[in-house]
C-alpha cells in the first residue's frame, strides 16, 4: 500500500519545527509502524536527506522508548498497543497520517519525534522506591503478600514509563504515571512504611517538573498501552491527602542536637 505522512521535523531543542510531507510506497501490511519508518529513513538517507529521528529500542512494547502521536493519538489507533507493536494492517492504501512528538511542557522536544522525558525519572527519584539497601533484606517468604494485593501492585507496576498518558492529557498532567509508580509500592507491605512520605514527595516533584493538574478527563487511561486504571489516581489522591494531614513540620535542629 501507499501512504502519505505529515511528519513533524525539528532540528534541535531551540529551532522551530514544521510538518513535512512524505510519500511512502511499497508498505507491506506485515510491517510494524516503526519498520515502515525505517523504510522511509533508508530512502531519505540514500537521497542525502536527514532521516526522521524517533526513539525505540526493544520493539516489543516493554521498554517504553517509543511513542509519538499518530493522528492525534499517542501510539496510534490500536488500543493497548505501543507504536512499535502497531502493524500496518491497521491502515489502508491511500491513508494520510500526521506524526508528531508527545507534546508537554515537561517534555521538551529534542529532535523530530524525540522528546526529553527525564522528568519522569526524577519523579521516581523523589520517592518511587523502597528504602532498602542491598544486603539488608529479610528472607523473601517471611512476609506473605495476599495474591490479590500482589496482583493489584502488579497492575500498576506494568507501567512502561512511555509518557503516553501525559501526551493524551489536555493538561499534560503526569497523574496516571505517578499514581501507577506510587500504587505499585504503596499497596505492598514492603512499601507501606514510606507510603505517605512517598505520596507527598512524588506529587511535589510532579508539580515542580511543570506537569499540569488533573481535571479528570480520563484520556490518560484510554491512551495507556498497559491499561493502568484511573482508580490509581484516586488512590494516589487519598494517600497524598492523608500524607498532608499527617505531615508534621520539621522541628528545628534537624539531625543535630548531639
Amino acid at each position: 500500500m501507499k501512504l502519505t505522512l505529515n511528519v513533524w521535523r525539528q532540528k534541535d531543542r531551540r529551532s522551530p519545527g514544521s510538518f513535512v510531507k512524505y510519500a511512502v510506497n511499497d508498505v507491506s501490511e506485515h510491517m510494524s509502524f516503526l519498520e515502515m519508518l525505517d523504510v522511509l529513513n533508508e530512502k531519505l538517507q540514500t537521497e542525502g536527506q536527514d532521516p526522521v529521528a524517533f526513539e525505540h529500542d526493544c520493539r516489543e512494547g516493554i521498554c517504553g522508548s517509543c511513542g509519538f502521536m499518530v493522528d492525534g493519538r499517542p501510539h496510534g489507533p490500536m488500543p493497548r498497543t505501543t507504536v512499535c507493536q502497531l502493524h500496518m494492517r491497521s491502515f489502508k492504501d491511500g491513508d494520510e497520517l500526521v506524526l508528531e512528538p508527545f507534546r508537554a511542557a515537561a517534555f521538551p522536544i529534542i529532535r523530530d519525534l524525540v522528546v526529553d522525558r527525564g522528568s519522569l525519572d526524577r519523579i521516581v527519584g523523589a520517592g518511587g522506591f523502597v528504602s532498602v539497601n542491598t544486603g539488608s533484606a529479610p528472607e523473601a517468604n517471611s512476609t506473605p503478600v495476599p495474591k490479590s494485593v500482589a496482583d493489584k501492585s502488579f497492575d500498576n507496576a506494568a507501567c512502561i514509563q512511555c509518557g503516553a498518558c501525559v501526551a493524551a492529557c489536555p493538561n499534560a498532567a503526569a497523574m496516571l504515571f505517578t499514581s501507577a509508580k506510587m500504587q505499585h509500592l504503596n499497596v505492598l507491605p514492603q512499601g507501606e512504611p514510606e507510603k505517605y512520605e512517598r505520596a507527598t514527595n512524588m506529587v511535589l516533584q510532579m508539580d515542580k517538573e511543570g506537569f499540569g493538574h488533573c481535571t479528570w478527563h480520563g484520556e490518560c487511561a484510554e491512551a495507556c498501552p498497559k491499561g493502568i486504571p484511573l482508580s490509581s489516581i484516586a488512590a494516589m489522591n487519598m494517600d497524598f491527602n492523608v500524607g498532608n494531614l499527617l505531615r508534621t513540620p520539621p522541628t528545628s535542629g534537624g539531625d543535630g542536637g548531639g
Partner: protein
Amino acid sequence: MELNSRVPEGPIETAWSRHKFNMKLVNPANRRKYSVIVVGSGLAGAAAAATLGEQGYNVACFCFQDSPRRAHSIAAQGGINAAKNYQNDGDSVYRLFYDTVKGGDFRAREQNVYRLAELSVNIIDQAVAQGVPFAREYGGLLANRSFGGAQVSRTFYARGQTGQQLLLGAYQALERQISAGKVKMFARHEMLELVEVDGRARGIVARCLDTGEVKSFVADAVCLATGGYSNVFFLSTNAKGCNVTSTWRAHKKGALFANPCFTQIHPTCIPQSGDYQSKLTLMSESLRNDGRVWVPKDPADCGKNPKDIPEESRDYYLERKYPSFGNLSPRDIASRAAKQVCDEGRGVGPAVGGVRRGVYLDFADAVKRLGKGSVSEKYGNLFEMYDRITGEDPYDVPMRMYPAPHYTMGGLWVDYHLMSTVPGCFVLGEANFSDHGANRLGASALMQGLADGYFVIPFTLADYLAGVKPGGLDATHAAFKDAEGAVNARTQQFLGIKGKRTVDSFHRELGYLMWDKCGMGRNRAGLEEAIQRIPAIREEFWKNLTVGGTGLELNQSLEKAGRVADFLEFGELMCIDALAREESCGGHFREEYQDDGEAKRNDAEFQYAAAWGFNGVGVAPTLNKEPLSFNYVKPVTRSYK
C-alpha cells in the same frame, strides 16, 4: 599470556565466604574519596551502581537510552532461577550449580558457577524487599515454576515481565541514590573509549547523544555492564540498540575477549516476514509444552493451507527424531532440527530471499485434549501477542516459528573478581564470559546479572580499590586527550565518506553472513569463507557509507555507524574462534564434529576458555587458553534420543 583466574582454593561450598573474608575492605569514611564508573544500567549495571552508591562511593552511571529503566534487561520474560527450594522438590544450591555446569556443556569455571548458585537466594530476598511483585500462591507465598526442562521448580516469575519487574527494582534503587547525590546518571551517553593510565583503567570517553558533545570521565575503576552482542546477526531477539561497542573498545585496549563464538539460538521466535524486518520477537518456550512441531513431508505442500495437509502428509520431526523428549528437546537441538527441515525445502510461511523459514507449532491437538478454555488460560496472552504481530489467530491456524539469536555466552574474559585483563576494568552481566559456558540455561541470565551487580562487585571492587590511591588525575591527562581525539576523528571519518549505502544495509549484509556461516550450524568451509568476506564488507563500509548531518546533534545514523563498525571487526573474531574450536559443545555446533546430529565434545583438546588478544584490525589475534578443571561435576555426554 598467563591467565590467573584467582579462584579460591579449597572446598567449593565455602570458597566464596572464605574469599570474602580474605579480601581487603575500604573503610566507610574513605569510600567517598573513590570514584567509580559503571557503564550500563541493565540488571547488572543498575544493581552495581545502586549498591556502590549506597556504600558511599562516588558513582557515575551511563546508558545510551533516555532512561536507565529502558536497558535491554527490561524485555526478559520467563523468569529468574534461585535455589530456594520452596517447593521442597529436591532443589539445593548444589543442584543449581550442577545443572548450570552441565547445561553449559562443561565449558564454565566451577567456582564461579557455585558462587552464582549460592547468591541466587539473596537476589530473591532483595527483589522482594524492593517491591518486585513476583507471582504468588493464594496463601501469599512466592510461586515457582519449572522452566526450560528443569526437573525442579526453581523459577520465580512476574507474569511475562520478569525482566521489567526486576529491573524496576534495581532502577528504583538507582534513582534513590541519584536523588541522594551518590550516583550521577548520564543517560543518552555512549561510551566510546576506555582510558588507561599507567596500565590501569582510569576512565572513559563518552559522547552525549543529545548534543554530540564528547567528554572524558575520570575514575579509580571502571565497570562495564553493557550486555550481549547478539545483534552482530542483525536480526535477533535483542533490543535494537544492543551492541558490542564498549567491550570491543576495551578489547582493543588490552582486555581479552573470551569464547566469542558461544552464542545461544532460541527455537521459538516469530519468523521473518520480509526484507524490511528489523528484529525478531521471542515467544515463550512454554508453548512447546502443549504445541506440536511439524512441517509437510513433501516440499510441494509447503505453500498450502495447513488445514488442507492431511495427518499422514505431516512430519512431526522432533517427535520422530527424539522420541523421549519430542517437542521439549533442548533449545539447541530443536533449533538445529528446524533449520535442517527448512534447508531441505520443507519450511512454511512466506519465502524471504527465496526460502521459506518457518515450522508449524500446532495447538489443534491441545485444544482437542484440554479444551479451548484451558489452552487460552495457559497461553492466551502469547496467542494475542502472536496475533498482533502476524495477524493470524493461533486457535485457527498453527503458529509459525523459527529460531533466532538470543543470548551470547561469550564476552570479556574476567577472573573470579570479575576483573578483565586490564587492571581496574571490571565486567558484569552478559558482557562477561563467566558463568554459562557454551550454553546458558533458561532463567539464569537475570540471576547472573543481579548476582554480579548486587553481591559480587561490591566486595571485589573494594578489594581492588583498597590497593590503589584515590584520584590524582584529571581529564587534562594526555591519555584522555588522545582518546577524545580518537573519538572525534572517527566521527569526522564517518561523516566524510559520503558514499551511497546506509549503515543498516551494511549491518544486514554482515548479519545475514554471520547467521549463515556462524549461526546454528558451522563448518570449516563456511567459516573460512566468512573470514574472507568480512574484511571485504568492512572495506566497502569505510568507502561507501553514507551518514548525514553533523557530529554535534542527535544523529542516530552516526550512533549506528559506530556500532556497526565495531560489529564488522568483532564478527571476524567470532568466526576465527568458531573455526579454532574443532568440537561441538553447547550452542557451538561444528557440523564436522557430530554423532548423527548429536554434538561431539572434545574434552581432551578443548576443555578450556579461549581468551583472544587483539593485535590490530585484520591482524590474526592471539589465542590464550584458560584450562578448565571439573572436580565436582564430572563431564558426561548429553543425549536426548
